[in-house]
């Protein structure tokens, strides 16, 4: 009997295609996914230049790794063929940048400081059209999907009550000037500035059905961001840290976030 059926497989060696019917007749699906960094690069290359409060609420800073950035994505996808879909994805990334120790001099008071500042939170909004490809014979949205997207990102630095330390290296000074402390607090970076760019994404996603409507999705995303080096990155807008330096650090963070792990739920509708 087994031999007979195995012979049957040999007879039917051609791979068949079928007309698109969707997953149990459903030809649209919405993905909701949470993202977290896969810190492969950070751990290999990143120096320990991130400063964080020693513990929550502490005014002391300690060096540390940026171990956990996260984000989320939501996308709507339309199945065109059983193994091909188009979609639109939007989402947010919540990441950090660290600037290390920055020198700061105040010409009016002749003060010269080194600023040790808590890492800065950055939020990026992402929107991208994408295509989803499955291998022949598979049936979207289930199974392995290859996602390819080209999108737009817009990043801003989150204004917050960051912890920072000023060490005065000026002659005779023993403590930071109150004006300088205020200046650093308010003008360390320009919080209104937006950093935009293009993003290229390849995603490897696996969806396993939990019910005929609900699916578990998980996978890895590989993102490459293209920095905008245009005119608007010149200067600092009166802040201590220049736009260019911030853009560079944002880009660096994103490089370290090249691989992200995603997990979430999908709805077939």
């Amino acid at each position, binding site marked *: *009997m087994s031999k007979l059926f195995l012979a049957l*497989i040999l007879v039917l060696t051609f791979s068949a*295609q079928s*007309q698109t019917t969707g997953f149990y007749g459903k030809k649209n699906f919405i993905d909701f996914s949470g993202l977290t960094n*896969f810190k492969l690069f950070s751990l290999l290359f990143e120096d320990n230049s991130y400063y964080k409060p020693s513990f929550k609420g502490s005014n002391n800073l300690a060096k540390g790794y940026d171990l956990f950035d996260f984000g989320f994505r939501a996308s709507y996808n339309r199945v065109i063929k059983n193994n091909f879909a188009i979609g639109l994805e939007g989402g947010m990334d919540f990441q950090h940048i660290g600037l290390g120790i920055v020198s700061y001099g105040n010409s009016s008071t002749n003060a010269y400081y080194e600023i040790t500042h808590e890492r800065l939170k950055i939020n990026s909004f992402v929107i991208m059209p994408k295509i989803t490809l499955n291998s022949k014979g*598979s049936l979207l949205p289930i199974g392995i999907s290859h996602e390819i997207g080209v999108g737009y990102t817009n990043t801003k630095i989150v204004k917050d009550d960051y912890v920072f330390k000023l060490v005065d290296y000026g002659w005779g000074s023993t403590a930071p000037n109150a004006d300088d402390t205020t200046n650093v607090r308010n003008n360390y970076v320009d919080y209104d500035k937006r950093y935009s760019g293009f993003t290229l994404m390849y995603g490897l996603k696996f969806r396993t059905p939990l*019910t005929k409507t609900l699916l578990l999705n998980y996978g*890895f995303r590989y993102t490459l961001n293209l920095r905008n080096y245009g005119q608007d990155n010149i200067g600092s807008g009166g802040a201590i840290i220049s736009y260019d330096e911030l853009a560079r650090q944002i880009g660096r963070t994103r490089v370290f976030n090249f691989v992200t792990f995603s997990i979430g739920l999908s709805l077939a509708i």
Partner: protein
Amino acid sequence: MFKKLFCALLVCLPPVLFSQVDFNNYRTLQSSGEIPTDFTLTSKSKMEEDLKNSESELTGMKKVKFYEGVNYAIDNILHSGDVVYGDPISTYASEVVDRLLKDDPTLRSKLRIYTIKSNAANAFSTDQGILFITTGLIAQLTSEAQLAYILAHEISHYTEKHVIETYSWQTKKSNNSLHIEKLSNYSKEKEFEADKLGLTLYNKAGYAVDAIYETFDVLMYSYLPFEEIEFPKNYFNTANIFLPDYLFPTEKYEIKAEEDYDDSESSHPNIKKRKEAVTAEIGTFANWGAANFSLGEIRFTEIRNIARFENLRTDIVDANLGDALYSSFILERSFPNSMYLKRMKAQIWLNLLNYKNENKVNDVLDANKELEGESAAIHFFLKKLTKEGMMTIALRQIYDLQKTFPDNKELKAVYDRCVVSLARTEKFKKEMYSTKTFEEALADFELHKGDSIKPEIVDTVAKKSDSKYSKIKSKKNADNPNNFDTTKFYLYGIGDILKDSTLWLAYDAESKVYQVELDKQKEIDALSYRERKKLKSKKKSSVLNLGIDEMIVVEPKVFSYRGNQGFDPQKSEKIENNYSEVIQNVGDEVGLKVHSIDRRILEKGGTVAFNERSILIAFLSQLVNDDDVNVFPVDFELLSEIQNNYGTANVMFSIVEHQRKAEIKWGWLGMSIFILPAMPIIASIHIPMAIFKANKTEMTVLVMNLEKGTIDAGGSYYFNEPIYKLNLGAHIYDIFMNMKQPSK
């Protein structure tokens, strides 16, 4: 008086009862009575039962592996579609076992006897108490006593637990080069032991001693057909067709079997050694009985005839068409009026015609080096036939049978298919045939020998003109006596059929359809590569569009493999159950009525479902032999009944193969270490990809049409997914929705 009459009737009753088989309207062997639990329990439950009751010295995983493997293997046989229970052969063999074990009712109660429709002459017992005998074995026997000795031998294998002992022995031995030889020797010891112990049972039952030696002879020559009768050269000759002698061999083919063959790598000792060992043992018994037929010779002959009819059918199923033709020739000597034999003969010729047309006729005939005995003449003859010769004889045979029995639906169906096959064969041209018989043509030839072309026999066109073309035409005319050639005997074989306008109307109609198809293909060939690819893709995507809303689903099958460790029977069985359930549920969901005929419903469906399933599997076997060749369903009548019972001609078979194995290329990763940034990039893409792709699944579906006897649709789907119910269901949903769509 009445009492005496009643007693006399009772005495006569057994032979009357056992002479009920109507060989003229024979039907293939089918199971009857209540379905035994051997066929309804799952392999897993049997394995658990065996593990509970086993007294074997095997322990731990070895024991589990043994019972898992053995139960799955036995179930594979039981559900092969070839096994029957409660049939006349199994019943007969059971009665022989009753006689052998009349003094041991406890042992008798543990044994079950089933028949396998197979032309291999074989019998074997299992550790679970099942005795299998093949129709091929019964067909070869000449007495009940021979069967009794074979069964006594197999019972001894069972009582001595030879199967598990051999397994246990094997697992203890290291895997060295001498292992096969040692295993062969060990196995031979067990055979000698079974021969010896079987002798005791056989002797006690009072069977004749001579039959023991005959049994060994039967085994030795069992590779030959069940009779050695010369095939007459004039067998096919009738008033309408003549086949010249040169088509048949001039010399006999020697039978090469010898008693003292090399058995060094065989599991069984050679016949000479077995005979010698048995002879030594025979002398230890003081008394021997004389029974050759304790159940009656008439009954034995009937049982053997059933087996021989089954042999013919099995040869057709397995596409051993030369052997099938020889079997039909032998059987029709005893059953000249058997309609079954006539139907089978017509089927054989149709199948031969189709194999020949596909240039594959050698696949269904014995190779030259294998030719032995009287049956070799048939193989020689069929090999010698040209395509034109085969077409002509097939048409002649089928035509004659159909015209003799015009009301027989099966012969009509074979005849219709024959006309279709001929219409689709470019070598078949009705214009090439002569209106004369071979004898008439020969007489004309003799009459006109040495003459130039006689004006009165050249056709009218030729008469009007002596052009080059008219001369060529004249030379091609088979009615021209100067063109007579015995190697073209076939040209004089259908003169009468040429006058049958009904046949040629059907032929012309099919030729037109075929021509349209050829023209379409030419148009496709003329398209650009891109256009052809597009068309192919379009065609592929509609391959399952059948426009059906009802079908029979037979035995969805699952083969699940555990990484490198091979087949996982338990998991496969579990998923098979899920798959079967999914098919039924999805069918309900999409409005495609599914009639399930599989082993899971046998408890409920009983013997009827079991028989239907076997018939459908046999047809599948025929189709699988060669998907290029359009074969006629051997059980045409029974398939028609199944179609009528279920109200649909569509039958789906499906198989799922699954393996979970992540193929991580450690070599690549190792190499990438030397280029530092490459390693994490390659690792971060390759490893997840390999893990996600670890599940490799192939789902194959095939839809047969019982009415047309063809595969209507089929294909394989590959996907990297686990085989959970919802995954399987999603793919089946897609397939069923496509099947519901009408073909464009």
